[in-house]
């Protein structure tokens, strides 16, 4: 179970970091969402993963740590609000600046990296 969990968190973080480094706000927003998913899973695992421990006192000999669940819930709420804000901000930036590049303008040397398709032009 631990291995699967670790791979999930790792892949989500990797995708999040990769997408955050893209030039357009849409992929950055998706990247931030992925990062916050990864972070929520990670926080949840900080109380150790277990299947059989009880969450309520006086019900069992071993208990699950209740605090990471509270932390994760808080992080989900805050993360959700922040993503909502950044989506609105990205739309505003698209309207104000006329494009959806994070820098507010197309990188001047972008055609070096992305060859324009001559057939369509």
């Amino acid at each position, binding site marked *: 179970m631990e291995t699967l969990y670790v791979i999930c968190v790792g892949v989500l973080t990797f995708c*999040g970091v990769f997408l*955050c480094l893209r030039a357009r*706000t849409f992929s*950055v927003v998706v990247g*931030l969402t992925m*990062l*916050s998913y*990864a*972070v929520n899973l*990670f*926080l949840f*695992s*900080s*109380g*150790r993963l277990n299947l059989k421990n009880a969450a309520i006192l006086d019900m069992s000999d071993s208990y699950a*740590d209740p*605090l*990471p669940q509270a*932390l994760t819930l*808080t*992080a989900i709420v*805050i*993360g959700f*609000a*922040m*993503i909502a*804000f*950044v989506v609105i*901000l*990205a739309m*505003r*930036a698209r309207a*104000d*600046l006329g494009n959806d590049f*994070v*820098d*507010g303008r197309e990188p001047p040397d972008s055609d070096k990296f992305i060859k324009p398709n001559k057939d369509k032009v």
Partner: protein
Amino acid sequence: MTVHLAILPILIPLVGGLLMLLPPFAGVERYQYRRVAALCLMLAQIACSIILILMVVQNGAIMYAVGDWQPPFGIILYADQLSAMLVALTSFLGLGVTLYSFAGSDREGKYFHPLVQFQLLGIYGAFLTNDLFNLFVFFEVLLIASYTLLIHGGGKQKTAANVHYVILNLVGSSLFLFALGTLYGITGTLNIADMSLRVAQLSESNQLIAQAGGSLLLIVFGLKAAMLPLHFWLPRTYAAASAPVAALFAIMTKVGVYCIFRVYTVIFGDQAGDLANMIQPWVWPLAILTVIAGTVGALASPNLRTLAANLVIVSVGTLLIAFALRTPEATAAGFLYLIHSTLVTAALFLIADMLGQQRGKALDYFVVARKIKQQALFGVLFVVAAMAVAGLPPFSGFLAKLVILQSVTGVEQKIWVWSVILISSLITIIALSRAGTTLFWRSTPSRDNSETPGVSKWQICATFLLLGASPLLALFGASIIEYTNNAAAQLHDIPYLIEVMNLEENAQ
């Protein structure tokens, strides 16, 4: 009332800010009501913070268990001399900002005053909390308020700067949570005092993980504080923000610096066993490089606001130098410099805005433009601010830098710190005098400036308030240094913190 004193600085702006969203204050045309309410709230916060300082000096640090959940399990607010001092500084700066915005910038959007209150709420909370996760929550509160305040007034520049600022800080928040999860997984606690007990008892393999968590936290705080490789967002963001917002943001980098001081003195301080002072070898060169980067940026600035923003970076670097020295004396000197630099850089942002208002399209860019109408007034304000920020006597900058220089021990450290701080001060003087000559003495001769609008009395009043603190800080230097000495001694006295938290018996 005095029992709940520690939480009052958080409650007043929270309730006040929420009330300002409701009918008697809501609505575009009701701005006068909001102004009166904002002024009352600021005065209440200042009164509250002064009482807090007096209580803390008289009776020692206050531990406030929210909901009476005792440490290490509950969320704890902890007001010691350092926190009380910073709360007072923030409320004073908030008053200046609120007064300045009365001139009209608060009418560019109808939520200015509530947002300032929420921003202050987050800052007070970050200063007062003693729980790492609670610190994260207050960080988010102050950040979301700052996102909206930054874009207040609208415009292309603000939007472009805000996109960077928001994305960077969201990535920072994710890193913060990763760091918290790591540290909680290892130590099983989030209380800063409790964690300092647990970190010393870690096994060797767990120490490595704790070190990773602690280093991640440094990245987060470094991003907030604008430490060298993470400072590139700051000049553009601060230069784009409207003047009162930029002035309020002068305290925001200090929140990051405060967290570095708190976390790496209490958790990873001298008593942390193998992890003691683990970030000091990193912070030391970064602090010096931050000062250099800020100074070079100040020389290269095209306008006064960017210059002020780069001076903020210089002040952060100087504070980090004071941190990296790791002695109570240097910490105390750093706190004095913190008060001084916050108020003076805030005043500099306000002066830049007022100059811009009188120079037409040239704004505060260093180009030849029409003559300023109130030259004598602005000349005096600018010279005072410039002398204070560069560290010339008789103002507080001189005193603060002198105390930092005096607190350095050891020959090698002396060579580095003395040369970096003194050369950076010299270059700051050059940059500011170059700025001043262009702004005040080079003007197009023929242009008639009788139609230039005068600045509002609120603006002048706010600038005098913030700038007037500088000579006062120097005048009452002895008692303020005594206070910061006590605050630094209290910060470095971990057994005292453990005792206030009643953690002794749990540890055994």
